[in-house]
């Protein structure tokens, strides 16, 4: 038991690693602040493109999102980070992570929005249009708010996934929370810093995970 505590919950090691980990946490927050809004906006574009009147736009969007949904996010990140330099482009780790995860998040958010928009009856469209709203106005002020509310649990739960996704940025040496913790781990030969990082993720995401469970149970009931 003592051995376990000294290897996984070592307070001395944790105290030493704390400044590094705190900086990592800040970078994780920065990454989330970039990728979540970009993904939400990209997802909306995807959902709109899937409803376009132009068949080629619908088709290419479907193929693209299917490909993006089939690729593991880590593979996509590595493809972009190690592949682009061969084409003469050298994205910084931050940029590569933003591109990869925005693409990934957009395709998942896009599917969620799509389900939401489908769940709003055509009567809502017709009623909104009959009051003199343009199609765009009907979408943004009548359909979209209802759609978003209908799929709120999915939107929140996908956002949890995006936050967890940012931990993969450590693989391309972006100095976010997990990278910082793993650096401290390799210096101290002790897993406590990573346990500490796990604790921080838990602290931030646990309330949201609880919320998702409650929202889902309410919808199901």
């Amino acid at each position: 038991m003592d051995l376990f505590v000294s290897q996984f919950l070592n307070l001395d090691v944790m105290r030493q690693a704390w400044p590094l980990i705190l900086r990592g946490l800040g970078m994780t927050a920065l990454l989330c602040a970039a990728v979540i809004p970009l993904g939400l906006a990209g997802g909306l574009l995807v959902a709109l493109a899937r409803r376009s009147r132009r068949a080629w736009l619908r088709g290419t969007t479907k193929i693209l999102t299917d490909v993006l949904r089939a690729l593991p996010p880590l593979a996509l990140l590595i493809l972009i980070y190690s592949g682009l330099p061969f084409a003469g482009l050298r994205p910084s780790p931050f940029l590569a992570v933003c591109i990869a995860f925005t693409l990934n998040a957009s395709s998942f958010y896009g599917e969620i929005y799509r389900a939401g928009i489908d769940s709003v009856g055509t009567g809502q469209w017709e009623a909104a249009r009959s009051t003199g709203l343009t199609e765009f106005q009907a979408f943004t002020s009548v359909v979209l708010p209802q759609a978003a509310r209908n799929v709120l649990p999915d939107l929140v739960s996908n956002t949890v996934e995006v936050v967890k996704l940012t931990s993969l940025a450590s693989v391309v040496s972006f100095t976010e929370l997990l990278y910082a913790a793993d650096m401290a781990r390799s210096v101290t030969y002790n897993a406590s810093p990573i346990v500490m990082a796990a604790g921080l993720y838990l602290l931030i995401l646990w309330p949201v995970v609880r919320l998702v469970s409650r929202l889902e149970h309410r919808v199901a009931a």
Partner: protein
Amino acid sequence: MTDLDRFVETFLNPALAQKTWPAIANGVLVTVEVALAVVATGLALGLALAYLRAYRIRPLNALIIVLVDVFRAVPPLVIILIAYFGLPNVGVTLSAFAVLWLVLSLVLAAFSEEILWAGILSVRKGQWDAARSTGLTFGETLRTVILPQAFRLAIPPLTNRTIAITKNTALGSVIGVAEIINQAQTAVAVTGNATPLMMAAVAYLLVFIPVLALAGRIERRFAWNRA
């Protein structure tokens, strides 16, 4: 050499593709092995936990909820690194493959428990009452009346989540499991050419697009026509 030639040379080099495809094919094999193992143990464990939770034994349920929440909230790569680098220090040495399988199974178990539990809760109480009144025991009711209905409701989220977690087999590359992207990275380092990366992308599509299609079919097959 034109730009197009240079592009083909760097990204779609047939000679290199021929040389590296056995490595990538091996990677595909490892990816499929881990994925199948994770799906089998993860779903079985998740079902067992949801089943236990239905008995509503307070301390046990509190424990299940805490465990499930931890594995849902902490990124899988974090758990993989703790297990891979931490366990040997307390005398437990597992192979990278075993760590990947174990961690992803626990993550899938956590998510599937939560989804199945939501399914169990959504079966109407009248179903319980009717089943018990015909003389079925609690366990029989759960197994033969409630769970089949819960499953049906749980299928769409369950297939989505299962696929998302099997795609996390790529995380094994970080601890040296020789799956697809790991093999490709090694080949890129050796050849100094991006072709193996393209092959890895295609390999993932070959593995996962049929899985996505199958999931879509399962969802349609079990969909309830709700008026």
